[in-house]
């Protein structure tokens, strides 16, 4: 009874805050869901066009309703939990993965006046929260009681944990130049045209020109690691169809699989958004003050992020899958040294400017 009283007091005291929280939480969710429909459709269409075919054509005009049809299909599909599975873990895993990408969305500044959570350690939070995906994957792989799932999960874990180091290096490099971990601040620093973006050395006069090669290499390193962290081709060994049936989500069906599907695309958006913030000026317009009002800033942010999502899709339908040992070679022997060298240069740049 006392507890209830406490809860009641709490709610009555913070009603406005809770309501605001819920409202603000809904915006990224709606964004994510709409984005997922667009991305799924885009993926199918880009894949088809690259292969000189048409893709979905018979669901609405040009197959525009294909993702909607898929949602309805997945909604009523039988939800199977295998007999030998660890049921609580099995049922929890897709939601944990989804939670990872949803929580990451909470600190992304969509515009200078709107970030769901104005956290001053946003980048640090994102590095931390993106590890949740690993947890979800290994939970799903382990709980499925299927050797392919387990192998896929193990591969995924080793891959993501390895690639987090170069990724963190890239983020650290930018953070050391920006002297801040707040994503809104980093975005604000890069206002005033694309010349001020961190991929071109940051907002520091003409003397920064020696930094440009390092920042560009840093961006490429981060792009490669972002592919690996979202388990996209060419680094999708965790769900390699040729070896493991469907990797860590072999045993998932219906809506649980839809969550895996959603989380994959959500993660793509999150890494693209981070890329946008730390290298491409976040919400700032590429043309200085031109079209730089808060509403247009949302447009710029989403447009830039979607460009990188498109790049990831494009790369997926270009390259074949790498081997597991090649994957590790690339991470530890190429990306890590490169990112360290670039990090040193960027840290120096951070000291000078």
């Amino acid at each position, binding site marked *: 009874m006392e507890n209830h009283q406490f809860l009641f007091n709490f709610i009555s005291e913070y009603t406005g805050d809770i309501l605001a929280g819920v409202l603000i939480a809904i915006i990224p969710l709606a964004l994510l869901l709409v984005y997922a429909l667009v991305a799924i459709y885009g993926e199918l269409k880009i894949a088809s066009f690259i292969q000189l075919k048409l893709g979905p054509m018979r669901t609405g005009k040009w197959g525009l309703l294909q993702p909607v049809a898929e949602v309805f299909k997945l909604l009523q599909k039988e939800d199977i939990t295998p007999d030998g599975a660890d049921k609580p873990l099995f049922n929890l895993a897709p939601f944990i993965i989804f939670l990872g990408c949803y929580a990451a969305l909470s600190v992304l500044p969509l515009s200078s006046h709107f970030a769901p959570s104005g956290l001053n350690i946003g980048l640090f939070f994102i590095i931390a929260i993106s590890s949740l995906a690993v947890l979800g994957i290994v939970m799903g792989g382990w709980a499925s009681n299927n050797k392919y799932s387990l192998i896929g999960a193990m591969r995924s874990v080793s891959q993501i944990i390895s690639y987090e180091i170069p990724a963190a290096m890239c983020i650290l490099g930018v953070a050391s130049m920006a002297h801040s971990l707040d994503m809104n601040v980093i975005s604000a620093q890069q206002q005033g045209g694309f010349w001020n973006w961190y991929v071109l050395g940051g907002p520091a006069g003409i003397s920064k020109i020696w930094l440009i090669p390092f920042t560009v290499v840093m961006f490429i390193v981060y792009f490669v690691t972002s592919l690996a962290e979202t388990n996209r081709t060419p680094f999708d060994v965790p769900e390699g169809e040729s070896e493991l049936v469907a990797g860590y989500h072999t045993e998932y069906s219906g809506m649980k*699989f839809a969550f895996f599907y959603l989380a994959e695309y959500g993660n793509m958006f999150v890494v693209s958004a981070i890329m946008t913030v730390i290298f491409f000026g976040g919400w700032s317009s590429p043309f200085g003050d031109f079209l730089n009002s808060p509403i247009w800033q949302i447009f710029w942010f989403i447009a830039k992020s979607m460009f990188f999502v498109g790049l990831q899709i494009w790369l997926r339908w270009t390259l074949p899958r790498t081997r597991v040992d090649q994957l590790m070679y690339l991470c530890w022997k190429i990306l890590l040294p490169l990112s360290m060298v670039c990090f040193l240069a960027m840290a120096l740049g951070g000291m000078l400017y």
Partner: protein
Amino acid sequence: MGLLNALDNPINADGIILGKVEDLFNWGRAKSNWFLQFGLACCAIEFMAVNASHFDLMRFGNIPRSSPRQADYIVISGTVTLKMAERIKILFEQIPEPRYAISMGSCANSGGPYWQHGYNVLKGIDRVIPIDVYIPGCPPRPEAFEQAVLKLQEKISMEEIFKKRERVAQEDKMLESMLKAEENNFIENVNKHI
């Protein structure tokens, strides 16, 4: 199709479109069919052609999945040996309901060229799993396969998902009639002996 049916329904005075939820779900189910990649013999080559650029099965919303858990239908494309039939059964049972099966080519339909002398060939995949659409041909043309997919979509959009599924009902009916026939036989035998 389902959505169109809903749109065809009369619009009442307030401008509200009335339709069944079932139609909506059936539309989704019919338009998004994920199939299990499963090739057995020469029909599988033709099946690849269907998936490739020229014929492009993805136009119908059919996307390949490698795990049966995420598939909606399985295509039995080729000769089914007794050894493989058991595996097919397992794979089919792993597909979550509602699930469908297409039998492609003469071999899967009835054993094909092996129906007389094939000691090791299953004479018709419908002895193991229930088949929804049969495609004749040896192997069928890619267009024939696409027609079968359209036919499957038609079948799906006609189904009543909130009721007992047609196939299950059919099986029940078959079982009932079999039992009845047995009973009749028994009675006849008894009558004879009397």
